[in-house]
């Protein structure tokens, strides 16, 4: 080809290509500046957006959902126990029922639990005996108790693979972190993003629009399935470009804090409102490994619980109009030892608690087959597990997503009903 015969797009064609890409931007007048909207092919057919919050380090469920009706709790924790709701203790639990109370630092979610917007499944966790953080987190995120061989992908990764389809949003699954969380492994299109802004075209930042237009023009002739997925990607880029998290104003006076959790939930909320096709978001919180100076209202745990519950409440209030299509699950790799240790803290334990936020939870603040804290009923000094975490997650997927084949998600596990999450 002779060099001076390169066909040029006309100025008009060029502009058309560029405006086609930013057509979504034209709807901006209808929405707040930070809120573009975009309809992906599969929007509306995939069930709830799942938001999975992992409390890293082994959260002390006994001091979060306090079994104030169990005397052994007070015997085991002379320093750390949270007082009974009607006691004169300065740090006392907020009653959830006549046996369990909420840590006062978690007050922001008290109302949600009482009014049926959230529920807690106590004495839940992985039946595997491991008290190693790494192993227990790993097993839980992979969705196995260790017996199933070769399962290295995550439960959410397998769930996403099982329900993937052409036309899925490129922003379908996000872990708000540097590395992909283990739970999302196995779904190759999952994103590990520190922020929404991480989802952007690299190269010369002054020419991003022109680069996108150039690529888009080439990918239109790129052959299936690349043309389709590239198209979805360019749309998502355009969408993300318009989401300005700094200018994001949560609804209903909701306030996220500046923790990783707060930022992750805020960005999750922005993507949900933007209709970005988000189906799974994973956020970490912690460090819950409170071996020393755990404290009551003044120690390491207190700040974490305040942040956790404030952000959960913010997310709920911010997304009040969307909660019918959102399920939040909070879990940790294990609970902590019943007996407090000599350092004002607690050591690695076994049974923990899971928290579900959704308008479709059972109208019971705490669901528990309480095994008791009498030493006869403990599992090596730890709270027994009476609900397998996979039962909870299975119920969640079955009732709130279109996934019908949980044998792939939790291989070798036959789920039992928990009664925590109802079908909508």
């Amino acid at each position, binding site marked *: *080809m002779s*060099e*001076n015969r*390169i*066909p*040029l*797009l006309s*100025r008009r064609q*060029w502009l058309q290509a560029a405006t086609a890409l930013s057509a979504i931007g034209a709807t901006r007048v209808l929405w707040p500046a930070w809120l573009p909207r975009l309809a992906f092919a599969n929007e509306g057919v995939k069930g709830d957006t799942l938001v999975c919050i992992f409390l890293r380090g082994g959260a002390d469920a006994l001091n979060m959902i306090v079994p104030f009706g169990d005397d052994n709790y007070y015997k085991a924790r002379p320093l750390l126990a949270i007082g009974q709701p009607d006691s004169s203790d300065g740090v006392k639990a907020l009653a959830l029922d006549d046996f369990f109370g909420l840590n006062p630092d978690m007050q922001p979610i008290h109302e949600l639990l009482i009014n049926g917007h959230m529920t807690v499944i106590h004495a839940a966790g992985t039946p595997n005996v491991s008290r*190693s*953080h*790494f192993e227990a987190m*790993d097993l839980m995120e*992979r969705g196995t108790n260790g017996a199933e*061989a*070769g*399962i*290295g*992908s995550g439960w959410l990764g397998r769930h996403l693979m099982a329900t*993937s389809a052409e036309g*899925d949003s*490129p922003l379908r699954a996000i872990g708000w972190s540097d*590395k*992909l969380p283990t739970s999302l*492994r*196995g*779904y*190759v*299109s*999952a994103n*590990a993003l520190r922020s929404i802004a991480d*989802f952007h*075209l*690299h*190269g*010369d930042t002054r*020419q991003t629009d*022109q*680069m996108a*237009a*150039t*690529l888009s*023009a*080439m*990918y*239109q*002739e*790129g*052959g299936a*399935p*690349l*043309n*389709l*997925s*590239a198209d*979805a*990607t360019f749309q*998502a*880029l355009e969408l993300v470009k318009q989401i300005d998290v700094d200018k994001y104003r949560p609804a209903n006076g909701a306030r996220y804090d500046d923790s990783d959790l707060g930022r992750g939930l805020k960005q999750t909320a922005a993507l949900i409102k933007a209709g970005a096709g988000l189906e799974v978001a994973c956020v970490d919180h912690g460090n819950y490994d409170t071996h020393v100076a755990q404290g009551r209202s003044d120690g390491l745990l207190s700040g974490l619980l305040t942040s956790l519950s404030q952000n959960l409440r913010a997310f709920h209030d911010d997304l009040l109009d969307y909660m019918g299509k959102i399920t939040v699950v909070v879990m940790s790799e294990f609970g902590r030892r019943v007996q407090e240790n000599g350092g004002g803290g607690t050591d690695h334990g076994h049974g923990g608690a899971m928290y579900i936020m959704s308008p479709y939870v059972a109208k019971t603040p705490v669901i528990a087959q309480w095994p008791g804290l009498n030493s006869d009923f403990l599992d090596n000094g730890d709270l027994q597990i009476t609900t397998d975490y996979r039962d909870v997650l299975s119920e969640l997927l079955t009732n709130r997503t279109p996934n019908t084949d949980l044998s792939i998600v939790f291989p070798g596990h036959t789920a039992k009903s928990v009664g925590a999450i109802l079908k909508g």
Partner: protein
Amino acid sequence: MKTQLSRRAFLTTLAGGTLLAATGCSNVIDRLAQPDLPKELWLPSGANRHPIAHLLNRATYGPRPGQMEKVQQLGREKWIEQQLDYKDIDDDALDWRLRRYDTLKWQAQDLMSLSGSDDFGGGDKDLVAYELAQMTLVRAVFSERQLYEVMVGFWTDHFSIYQFKNDVLYFKTVDDREVIRPHALGKFRDLLKASAHSPAMLHYLDNTENEKSHPNENYAREIMELHTLGVHGGYTEQDIQEVARCLTGWGKNDDGEFEYHSSWHDDGEKIVLGHVIPAGGGKEDGDKVLEILVNHPSTPKFICTKLVRRFIADDPPQNIIDACVSIWQSTDGDIRAVLRALLTHPDFDSAPPKLKRPFELMASLLRATNANYDGNRNLIDLLDRMGHRPFAWATPDGYPDKAVGWANNMLPRINLALDLMNEELSGVKIDIWDIAERMDAERNAEKLLHHFGRLVLARDLTINESAALWNFATGGSGKKPNLNDDKGRDQMLQTLGLLLASPAFQWR
């Protein structure tokens, strides 16, 4: 023009230079080990990709500048023969690059001694896992034994082992070195036998737990479903139980070496796929099973289908599978003979596009630009984020080999090319202007675009490609970027980045 040491001069330098043996000279080694480019690069033209580029896209990790003309001169058949006789190919420059990875030569026992990792899985465990993955990428990019490396990748997927299951990673380094690599172009029988004696495999698929009183059928199932017969290969659940019985006691010792524990073995009679295995056979029960599986007619069909999928098409054509099976049968499963038949098959050149998986995309980008990669961890992390870190596929079926498994994650693929051209991949250096000079295009932006297109795509740019790219290069104004100033040169680097990010480069 830049001066570059010739290969001969490089080797002489290495031989005489004890200095280089010292650590801390990695960058010097990298520079010296970088392949020479010809003074004038050959630029295929025409509407369709040149057949040699097609061959190199399938049988290697992507053509390097200058490689097509070498193959052309040598002749395709001869080049294939050379690649099949991989041991005769000089790979000294690669070996120097690999010297920085200490753990590659260690025995399992030494690797396990690194297990002083903390509770959260940090520490030295990472070193072992990373070094094996880094080595794999360095080899894909720089080894002259390209077909061999492609086949090592194929068998790594076929006998897939997830590095991060418990202690598997300590043994996977040994498995790669002593199972996959020695037999990748040998006889399938030897490969299967080596794999069945591999502590990494036995541990990964739980045969280390398989004892008479508590049989574990995991490996027994997968060796038939995934390694030999295929899922519809004609075995029953009963066969799985019987194979598991035959393999009771096949495990490892505390040093991480293969060991048969006779006290764990079920010594009764078994019937596997209709073959009676008499009682009292001990360890040989398992050896007999391997022989039965190797000789079963489903095995060549299953593996040849996968080979044709890897080299030809997502939906492998039956006639090519049949040709490969027939060669397999007449050569007793000689992998080289099968590959020869595959790569010289009359339908090879007309094979439909295959989507590059992220690892292949990364290696081919580095090769196409003659990039110098210092072998660091960052690219492994990047592959991890793209879902294709070597040895990190969790299930034993290996990474997917069809476009649908990978196509919906486009942004990281596009960004990879843009980062490469903007020198934003840490530890990766490129010199496009050196390549431009060898294409006689260092002064003319249009020529640079078109020649670079011909270099990396082995055909002319399409009208659509050149229109889109030239519009970008000129800012839609038709005004040529001036290659004598930094602004113009940068604009062309961005343009060439977009070319490498284009759909055409996503396909093998």
